[in-house]
């Protein structure tokens, strides 16, 4: 996605109203937003709307197909799949947001520093970024999550770390574009500190593309967490987690396909929601795309 998003142009924030209107004219994006809100509500209201406890196991009711009692069937321990999916929304959404937050919180300052100071600082930082981007991201995250041990927190850290270089690179590119502009020169002449110039003058003007990339990355982050969980590196059981549910259901694919079918669908919908939303936001700022 890097290529697409790097070419997003900075747009002054003043056009906010027009932007909002344009966003709501994009039907797909609005649907995406709706899907996300639906899952957010699900996550918040989990204790109220989940028909059963996500942890209550009834061995004698294992592998029951979807019925009126269990809308999405029961899993390999006789737990209600629907309730587990509803509770699982929490982990998925939170991990997606935290991963991107981590990527932004570390990547953006690094990119700012590299782009602003240039020279040897830039050289060193960018070599490190190159090295990090040279790894297949998933393999690196896999290795880190495995070293740290299976837990949602560790998966978030592992994937978050892998997204840092991406944000560093994008921010640096934006800085290089903005750096030479008059208002930055003006600020420097007035004697503003490098810190103030970086964060106040440059970052504010480079913010739009970063926001777009961040939105587009949430879906990917949720997908990565699900991948790690699918490989057994998610939160320890019995916590309801979509990727782990998919993994444990995969061994009963012929006997009880619903165990893995529905969590997969949930992942798919949430990711689709964030991608559509990100796409919409990008269109708002860069309608030509």
């Amino acid at each position, binding site marked *: *996605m*890097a*290529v*697409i998003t790097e070419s997003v142009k900075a747009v002054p924030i003043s056009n906010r109203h027009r932007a909002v209107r344009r966003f709501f004219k994009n039907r*797909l994006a609005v649907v995406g937003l709706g899907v996300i809100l639906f899952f957010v509500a699900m996550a918040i209201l989990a204790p109220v709307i989940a028909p059963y406890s996500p942890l209550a196991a009834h061995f004698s009711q294992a592998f029951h197909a979807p019925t009126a009692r269990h809308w999405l069937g029961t899993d390999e321990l006789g737990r209600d799949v629907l309730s587990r999916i509803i509770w699982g929304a929490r982990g998925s959404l939170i991990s997606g947001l935290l991963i991107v937050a981590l990527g932004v919180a570390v990547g953006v300052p690094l990119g700012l520093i590299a782009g602003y100071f240039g020279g040897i600082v830039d050289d060193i930082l960018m*070599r*490190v970024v*190159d*090295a*990090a*981007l*040279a*790894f*297949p*991201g*998933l*393999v690196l995250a*896999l*290795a*880190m999550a*495995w*070293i740290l*041990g299976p837990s949602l927190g560790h998966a978030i850290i592992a994937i978050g770390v892998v997204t840092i270089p991406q944000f560093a690179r994008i921010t640096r590119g934006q800085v290089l574009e903005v750096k030479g502009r008059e208002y930055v020169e003006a600020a420097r002449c007035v004697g503003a500190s490098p810190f103030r110039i970086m964060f106040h003058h440059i970052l504010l003007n480079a913010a739009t593309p970063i926001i777009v990339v961040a939105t587009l990355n949430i*879906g990917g982050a949720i*997908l990565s967490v*699900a*991948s790690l969980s*699918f*490989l057994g590196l998610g939160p320890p059981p019995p916590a309801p987690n979509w990727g782990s549910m*998919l993994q444990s259901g*995969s061994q009963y*694919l*012929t006997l009880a*396909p619903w165990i*893995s*079918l529905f969590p*997969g669908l949930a*992942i*798919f*919908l949430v*990711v*689709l929601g964030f*991608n*559509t939303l990100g*796409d919409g936001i990008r269109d708002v700022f860069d309608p*030509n*795309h």
Partner: protein
Amino acid sequence: MVLFVLRRLVNLIPVAFLVLIVTFSLIHVAPGNPAYTILGEQASPTAVRLLDQKMGLNHPLVSQFGTYVASVLHGNLGSSLLDGQSVTSLIITRLPVTLELSVLAVALSLLIALPTGILAAYRPNTWIDSVSRLLALLGAAIPNFWLALLLVYVFAVTLRWAPSLGWVPLNVSVLGNLGHLVLPTIVLALPLVAITSRVLRGELLEVMHRIYIQVARAKGVKEWGVVMHHGVRNALIPVVTVIGLQVGGLLGGVVITESIFSLPGMGQLVVNAIFNRDYPVLQGSVLFMALVVLLANLAVDLIYAWVDPRIRYN
């Protein structure tokens, strides 16, 4: 130009070295000891100690790293702790699988992305465009392991149209080889379709707004001809770029796909090496993958620079 390539190549050295350090330290801070993997059921404290000595794992880490780097510089990637096979030969036997899978996936993705991307650009903001956009979004959002399970369930288990796993080398049976790659190729290609078709559409729109197209149109060329002749040719370059930059992502997808479909390629090699603590194999194959990604990026830059003279090799 030559100087630019040389400079970029020299830049690769510190990056490769960093990759080595990171891989080496990651795997060595990991809990667990390969002696246990090897001994498995038979692991006992004495047996583990003896095996550690035999494999040289009782030496300090720094000296192990030194030995490793020295042998890499001599072109020797070491050999597997599990069975003594040389890492270079392991990579060589597994590369064709991954290469074929990747090439097929890229080909399939182009086969879908080119028409949808072109159609979408030809009629922007119509239902065609919306459908193509929706397809792209769907493709990017589908979890590949889930898709793999679904495909196996539907096409291999239920319908029995395609084998569910395994690998037949090309020289044994061409049909068997392709048959085994159908499902993995689809899984790997789908996210690529999404990105490629959208980039193609965007680039096409941009190109078509340029003046020379207006001129062509003014000269009376039919609109379809404009799109195909001027637009597509110019828009393909960014597409190539995208694919080049997706090499890293492709390798990540390969890891999952090869694991699920039991394909004996690089992805499976890496995953097994991680879980078996096979240090030399892991280091060697990750280094190799990283170099492939770096070289792909370099190639992309070169193509870009070559095509667009405005970019200077500073």
